[in-house]
């Protein structure tokens, strides 16, 4: 059993974007705060901090979750992926390229959460229909685009991901 008192600072070991990380923080911090404030990964955004907008979505063990409602403490030993870990070196992920090219980002503030959520969609469904894309992104509010160019971007990226896949991705 793990036990932390409110006065402690906790030291946590986890993997962030594929790299092992140790970070100390106050135990009442959410993953959102730990990422932005203790790991300087400010690509993860916040629009409400109450689970009402989706801007802070990240992947924890490949599951899309809201970092604003996830305790940092709960991430011991987990693998966290943020927008900073989506590109491969300087090569954009097809989702990133498509968001940039096809109008998927206007102000860009919802983009991180959108892209992480769409990544999770591809894991489960490499060939989503437009309706399926809309469903998958229904927990991410965008105030700029009306979603249409976001759906365009995810659709276009899915085609590229499928083409580039060296072997059929293993069933999960």
């Amino acid at each position: 059993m793990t036990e932390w008192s409110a006065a402690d600072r906790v030291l946590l070991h986890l993997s962030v974007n594929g790299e092992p990380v140790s970070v100390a923080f106050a135990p009442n911090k959410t993953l959102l705060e730990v990422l932005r404030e203790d790991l300087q990964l400010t690509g993860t955004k916040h629009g409400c901090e109450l689970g009402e907008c989706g801007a802070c979505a990240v992947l924890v063990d490949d599951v899309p979750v809201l970092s604003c409602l996830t305790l940092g403490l709960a991430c011991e030993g987990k693998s966290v992926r943020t927008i900073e870990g989506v590109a491969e070196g300087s090569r954009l992920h097809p989702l990133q390229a498509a968001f940039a090219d096809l109008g998927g980002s206007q102000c860009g503030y919802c983009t991180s959460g959108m892209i992480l959520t769409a990544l999770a969609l591809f894991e489960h469904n490499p060939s989503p229909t437009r309706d399926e894309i809309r469903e998958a992104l229904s927990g991410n509010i965008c105030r700029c685009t009306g979603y249409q160019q976001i759906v365009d971007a995810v659709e276009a990226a899915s085609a590229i991901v499928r083409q580039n896949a060296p072997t059929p991705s293993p069933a999960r």
Partner: protein
Amino acid sequence: MNERTHSVIGLPRRRVDGRAKATGQTRYADDIVMPRMLFAKLLRSPLPHARIVSIETSRAESHGGVHLVLTGRDLPISYGILPVSQDEHALCPDTVRFVGDPVALVVARDEATASDACELIDVRYEPRRTIADPEDALAIEEPRIHAYGEHGNVHKLAAMQFGDIDAAMADADEVFEDVFFYEGNTHLALEQHATVAWLDGDGKLVVCSSTQTPHYLHRALAKALAIPAQHIRVIAAPNGGGFGGKSDPFNHEIAVAKAALVLDRPVKITLTREEVFYCHRGRHPVLMKFRTGVKRDGTITAVDLQTLLDGGAYGSYGVASTFYTGALQTVTYHVPTYRFRGCRVFTNKAPCGPKRGHGTPQSRFGQEVQLDKIAERLRLNPAELRLRILEHPDALTANFLRVRTIGLAECIRRVVAASEFDTRHRRMGRGRGLGLACSSYLSGAGLPIYWNEMPHSSVQLKLDRSGGVTAFCGASEIGQGSDDVLVACVAEVLGIEPFDVRAVTGDTDLTPVDLGSYSSRVTLMMGNAAIQAAERARDILAAAVSRKLDVPASRLVFAERRVFDSENPDQGMTFRDAVCAAEAMSGAVGSVGSYTPPKSEARFKGGGVGPSPTYSYTAAVVEVEVDESTGWISVPRVWVAHDIGRALNPVLARGQVEGSVYMALGEALMEEQAYRRLPPRLSNALVHKFPSMLEYKSLTSLDMPEVFTELVEDPDPAGPFGAKEVGQGPLLPIMPAVANAVYDAVGVRVHEVPITPEKIVKALAELAGGKPGYVGPASFPDIAWPEALMVPPPWEGGTGQATNQRQREKPSGAGAPRR
């Protein structure tokens, strides 16, 4: 040059800031972290209206980790976005005017400590009577929310008349009289406002903020802090959405700037979502009454419009908003005689201001719904009616607005064809319907918000031997793509790639003034300034290349990163060599360009609101399905055509159209900045009903239909490469098109926004009871209007001046009632 096909303009391209946004690299204001940075929180009023008796801050000041507590005493100078409404203080010195009005700022080592210390500040209030709504505001002279304004709680009264309204109404075959109500709503930009302020090494103040208007913030800071503007640097961080909600100078911006000055440490504040709802400056709730006279063929003889705006607690842009409710009725359809009377009142709610479409969507809703009724009565197809009465290109309207190009007829034809409107309207069977509406909007306000004769936008270019070009402009990127427009215009003129141009924007130390990202002005104004700057740079390079190659400058072409002889394309040099040649010949290479809108022909008081270099036009058809038992509304499809003049980057242009439709559908169907008044016998409370993203309903990806967008391109001579605005206009026709579609589907008229299932059920019940099937306001109150400014329209020999302006400015006794 004009003959050549464009190599950048008009082609779909990755936006210049697209990569940074898709990788999380864009640094919004809250992403900024600085050494020694402190954090601030505002203590806000829990009362809607009260006098501050005392503020005791000592307990907060001595709380561990607290560095500073500021109150109204520390920031005594008022400010406001409009010169006529300098009614705000960063921290309320003596009166709080709505729940959320800030009274103190706490600066501490972290946010949690600052929040805890806010709880330790003791504020004693003496409650004052709550002015909850316009009805209260019109009836209650005392207490006054502000000591200025027309009288009591009436902030602004406007009245203007263009031609003999009574005669023109008498000349009509039919006069239609309708009352409408448009509920307030807010921007809900996804980024919560944030500001970081610090002193640079030289001791000068730097304020980096999520602002759409760094220039106006710069002026407000100079005033409120009483330090010279040249010692303040304002940086507009990329905005995570604006929509008008980051256009005012805000309390938090000024208060943290003050804190940084006092402490000489960086201070950051980031508002919570709830606090963003209190900043508001969103759409005014507007009650309006339209009287429209028409001939049997649909020709309008006169429009007589009254509007009543619930302004909330402060002036903000409200005086302009008031005029905007009456400004643009005339640029869409030909209105030979026009009267407009507008009234804005103060209430104890978060202040209203400019939201996408600023002041015009409300009356657009009324006008377009009324036209639908007129078409039905006259047995005309609603599209045909509109095509008959469109204003003409180059017309000077009754209220002296100069129209340039109008692509609205083409817009109407396109949406009618795409939606098969002619064969489906009124023929879709119960529960399904189509509605059509049109609109127009400014491509930039013709006048600045403070009087001056300087340019509205300026661009500076720096070229050097690297072959790179840096474009400097004060415009702020709020997501609309202004950096992309700047780069595209410069790259196009110089014949280089957008990737060769770096945009430096929204920084008052580095960039020449642009007034800000509001009124859909940036593409047209900054674009024209950028073209001028780039053409001047091109001339400098051409002179050097001409001498070096011995080719007349007039024959030189700039394209494909080269400068060459049009008659012998092999004779030329790279763009980089051209810059080197110019630098060698005449020293450092730079240029400037500016844009000032043409002078307005409206010279009467209030005529400053409405003029624009040119207007955009939009037509939309909305399809709805309405369940007759529950009133549930679905919008399966929207067709929209926008007269954009020229799409500089069609991907971004389409995104602006679709985004406008999105925001419009939210307003049409569900968004409400609603308040809750507790029973007055028990409580003074007047609170925002649900200041959260959960209960303020913004459409999700599932609620948003597919939108079929058409861009109508007929280049307008006033715009850069012919471009007009696209960021706001396409919002306007959607709300009335939804209302008209609901009528087509189930035969009820909803004269209110938002259009909800409850309202439809209520109207259907009326209809079933043999009544008209109407939901909306019952009446418009009697307002004691001042004598109208009388401005004869151009066709009656008018010169744009009021014939009674001087008389009206004297106390005439015909103004507002006094007690």
